[in-house]
């Protein structure tokens, strides 16, 4: 039993540098395996729909991007960042990037678009 047990530590921390990371000015890189925004490399994708089938959040829509086969378009406003799509893809076309800072003013802005090389297309949110 005692009073003010934390006092010594409290006073000590007055003389230490604070533990705060001054985000957004200062950023510590996210760990290697972070499950951030999933993106699809269309050059690998064969349009098999396995990703859309297994996505628990129905965040993947197979959309016509002007190529022969439909390609996955991600709705990040629904995505649970679980990485199942990357696991399910037989061609390893989907990678979970380390990008996590996705805040946006509108939900329409949270939809992935077709990559360079193919026709750009924006999929409006329903």
């Amino acid at each position, binding site marked *: 039993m005692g009073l003010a047990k934390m006092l010594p530590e*409290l006073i000590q921390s007055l003389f230490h540098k*604070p533990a*705060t990371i001054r985000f957004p000015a200062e950023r510590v890189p996210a760990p290697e395996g972070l499950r951030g925004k999933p993106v699809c490399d269309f050059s690998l994708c064969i349009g098999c729909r396995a990703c859309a089938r297994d996505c628990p959040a129905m965040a993947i829509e197979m959309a016509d991007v002007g190529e022969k086969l439909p390609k996955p378009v991600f709705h990040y406003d629904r995505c649970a960042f679980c990485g199942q799509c990357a696991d399910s893809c037989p061609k390893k076309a989907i990678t979970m990037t380390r990008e996590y800072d996705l805040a946006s003013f509108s939900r329409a802005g949270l939809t992935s678009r077709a990559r360079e090389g193919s026709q750009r297309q924006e999929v409006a949110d329903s």
Partner: protein
Amino acid sequence: MDFLADLFKLLVFPGFLFVVNFGLFLEWVDRKIYARMQHRVGPPWYQPWLDTIKLFTKEDVIPEKANPFMFTFLPVLDLAAAVTAFLYLPFGGFSSVNPFPGDLVVVVFFLTLSTLLLFLIGWYSGSPFGRVGSLRAVTQFLAYEVPLVLSLLTPALLAGSWSISTIKIVMAQNLSRFLPVTLLALAVSLLSLQGKLLRVPFDAPEAETEIVAGPLTEYTGRRLAFIRLAERAELVVGAGLISNLFLPFDKVLGMLGFFVSCVVVVFGLSVLRASFARLRIEDTTLISWKYLIPFSALGMALAIMVRG
């Protein structure tokens, strides 16, 4: 001309503007020290001012259940009471607006008044949290008021006067002899001031996790700003009073000394806030009767003995 000078005193220096700004400064000191003790960076120095400005520009809402007249009138009165209390304090080489032999009593009276106003503020806000908070504020008021007054009386006894400026002079002259004697009273008065300002461990009346924000729960915008300013002003008065009576550095260092001793007092209050858990309202009362009051009485007895 006299009238203008008085108005200046009332509104600018040492009145309203000075008190409010100094209060906001002390709030920053308190928050910063508190944050640093928790390994955090804490708010920038201008934070309290911006908080206040923002509150003034927010929408004013009068809840349906509140009494509209009381709801508007009480916060202003609360601030007025706290500022008035300060006008009776001499500081930093300036004498008070109206020094007279019993001004210590007047200051304590105005401090008490603002607590009672807080009770009304909560009671008429029409929120159950406000009511519980108000009842607790009054219960707590009974607990800390006695030790606060007793411990403030200790230097008064030593100096043999009720006038703050006289006590101050006597204390400053005999600081090395009197300070050890008054240490006990100083500690008790810091603790009771903590209670008076409703801060941890005596923050049951505003306990966030129990009753949201107690009496302030329903207040928004300007009215909330007034109450908050009144609390800051009370902090200035409390810190000023203690620094006047116990740590009269300003007799040596002038204005700077006053600032320093106020910051020292606020530092003490912050340390208290950081190192304890909140006490239940019953325990507050109990601790007051069991420890604070006996110790403040002991402090007084010491003072009487020293004076012989």
